[in-house]
């Protein structure tokens, strides 16, 4: 490693192909990725996109078929010992450990795998139990924990060795709304408490990635389709400024606004009570403008039309819009394209074709 801080993640042209019949499965197809130290980075994509395969390569559980990957300068193929000292991983739905152990005992056992001294281990375990909010379950057997409590326990386990890079693989998978929120809060709290540490989060929950990540990559069929901050990615699909106007009236209809300078289109969408049309209490108009500056002219003109603004909101595309723009289909449509053993379905297809893959849980 050089003396300057290297990239937290440096992936170059990584391919991962699984042997399978009748045809090999291409889980990763030439991935390039750079994540800076201290960054919270998300991999967003549907099931089978290759997110988990990439995380397994970075956590030394899998070898790339070709290409290279480094984590903080450590080669994931050859410098596994060093890398394992500075990282940790928590996966969604994780059922690790031993049900007969108490929460405190289970964490202590894992603390020993990272070389914490006996007393230091117990102290650290108690601190983390308090931090993740499992104080009341301290003496409870692991087998009796709820799914949400179990994930808090996993999160505490992941922090036992003060990781410099924390891999979170679908960390809120299968959790209810409240438990998922708690886990996200823990991730945020950890980031705030230890600036400089890096997170790689995989998820197919867009809001989660948007909430927790500085930047993200949209992944599909083993390829990265786009990388950027959530705002940057949204801007890619937002070629015009879109505003939603709620007016008290608009007697001449949206056509009255269409001819104004800078207005690309003006469409009446629905009244505030949900009915389409203009003869209602309020009128909703969707305005597409060449740029934000054109809004001033529109607002000035409304007075001349006898209309008053009730509300004004700038409409932003969602990450799903970005995904649809890039992939040509939505997340929910993934099922129709991931069945079978095609390269777009590594996870599912692996289960069907490869005996006991490592990532089967």
């Amino acid at each position, binding site marked *: 490693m050089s003396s300057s*801080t290297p990239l937290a993640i440096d992936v170059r042209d990584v391919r991962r192909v*699984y*042997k399978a019949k009748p045809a090999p499965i291409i889980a990763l197809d030439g991935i390039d990725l750079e994540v800076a130290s201290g960054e919270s980075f998300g991999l967003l994509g549907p099931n089978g996109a290759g997110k988990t395969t990439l995380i397994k390569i970075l*956590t*030394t*559980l*899998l*070898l790339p078929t070709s290409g290279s990957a480094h984590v*903080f*300068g*450590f080669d994931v193929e050859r410098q596994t*010992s*060093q*890398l*394992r*000292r*500075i990282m*940790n*991983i928590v996966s969604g739905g*994780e*059922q*690790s*450990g*031993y049900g*007969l*152990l108490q929460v405190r*005992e289970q964490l*202590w*056992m*894992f*603390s*020993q*795998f*990272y*070389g*914490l*001294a*006996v007393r230091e281990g117990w*102290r*650290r375990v108690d*601190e*983390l139990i*308090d*931090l993740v909010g499992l104080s009341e379950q301290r003496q409870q057997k692991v087998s009796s924990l709820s799914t949400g409590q179990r994930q808090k326990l996993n999160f505490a*386990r992941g922090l036992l*060795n*003060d990781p*410099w*890079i924390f891999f979170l693989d679908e960390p809120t998978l299968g959790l209810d709304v409240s438990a998922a929120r708690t886990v996200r809060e823990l991730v945020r*709290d*950890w980031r705030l*408490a*230890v600036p400089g540490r890096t997170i790689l989060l995989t998820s197919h929950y867009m809001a989660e990635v948007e909430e927790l990540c500085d930047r993200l990559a949209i992944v599909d069929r083993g390829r990265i389709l786009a990388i950027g901050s959530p705002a940057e990615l949204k801007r890619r699909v937002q070629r015009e400024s879109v505003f939603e106007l709620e007016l008290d009236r608009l007697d001449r209809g949206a056509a009255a606004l269409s001819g104004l300078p800078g207005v690309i289109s003006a469409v009446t969408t629905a009244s505030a009570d949900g009915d389409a049309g203009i003869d209602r209490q309020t009128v909703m108009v969707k305005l597409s403008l060449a740029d934000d500056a054109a809004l001033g002219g529109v607002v000035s003109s409304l007075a001349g039309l006898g209309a008053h603004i009730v509300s004004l909101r700038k409409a932003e595309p969602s990450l799903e819009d970005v995904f649809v723009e890039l992939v040509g289909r939505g997340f929910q449509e993934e099922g129709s394209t991931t069945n079978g053993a095609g390269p777009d379905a590594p996870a599912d297809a*692996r289960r069907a074709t*490869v*005996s*006991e*893959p*490592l*990532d089967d849980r």
Partner: protein
Amino acid sequence: MSERSAAPPSPFVSRPTASPADAARWSPRRILITNLRTISGRAYPRVIGMMREPSWLFFEILLPFLTTSAFVFVYRALQAPPEYIGFVVLGGAMTAFWLNVMWLMAAQLYWEKDQGNLELYFTAPMSMMSILLGMAIGGLLMSCFRAAVVLIVGTVLYGVVFSVDQWLLLLLVFLLTLTALYGLGMVLATLFLLWGREAWHLTQLLQEPVYFVSGLNFPVARLGVLGAAAISTIPLAVGLDAMRQLAFAGSVHTDGFLSPEVEALILVVMAVTFVAIARFLLQVIERLARREGRLTMRGS
């Protein structure tokens, strides 16, 4: 590893390090200590489980003791020399270790995989050998208790009289037997993971023949060539043969196959060989896991 002397900035961090490179730089001493702690950490659930779920007292002590008692009554009915009662009690005690190795120890990695622990073990910085050793030591402690109960109760109940001239050698042979036996257990654990149910079935198939040729209830020398084969491959057979000679010194019925000293050497070779094989197989497992994305030989 260079560490800041200042107090930790947050309860989220217990050992602040200046950089990832610092955190990754471990001294050989720290690596050794981590592996030793891993051994005790992994042994912990076994020991705790023993205390927390006492039902094993019934299944692993009382029931097997009935088998030992049956042999005692058979020998008494046949008016066998009194040393034979001692052979049975000694064999009954050692059965505890054999059962533990063959079933619990051998299946352990397979279970770990099913529970999702194996991936976490692979991503932790210790050697997988330490995990296996921890499993072995945990199981060994548990079995020691059972063996002690069988030995003490059997001795008192059936009036066994031991005659030991070389206590130290007896202790050494006992420890070497356990080391070789649990070395074999580590090999079986990796084989079970590699071959899954096929290995399980093979163990089931071999259980009774191994019992027979191990000479748990009689001097293995009586088996002739078969006994020689057992002595060269099964740690339990060698260990029992040596312990029997040492625990009933001077008896004309012990019929040792080889001298206890030679058998102790055989046990050393077995222990080293089994541990080396287990280490090699663990490397095979990790290579398979990383290269092929799977942990078993099946599907290759």
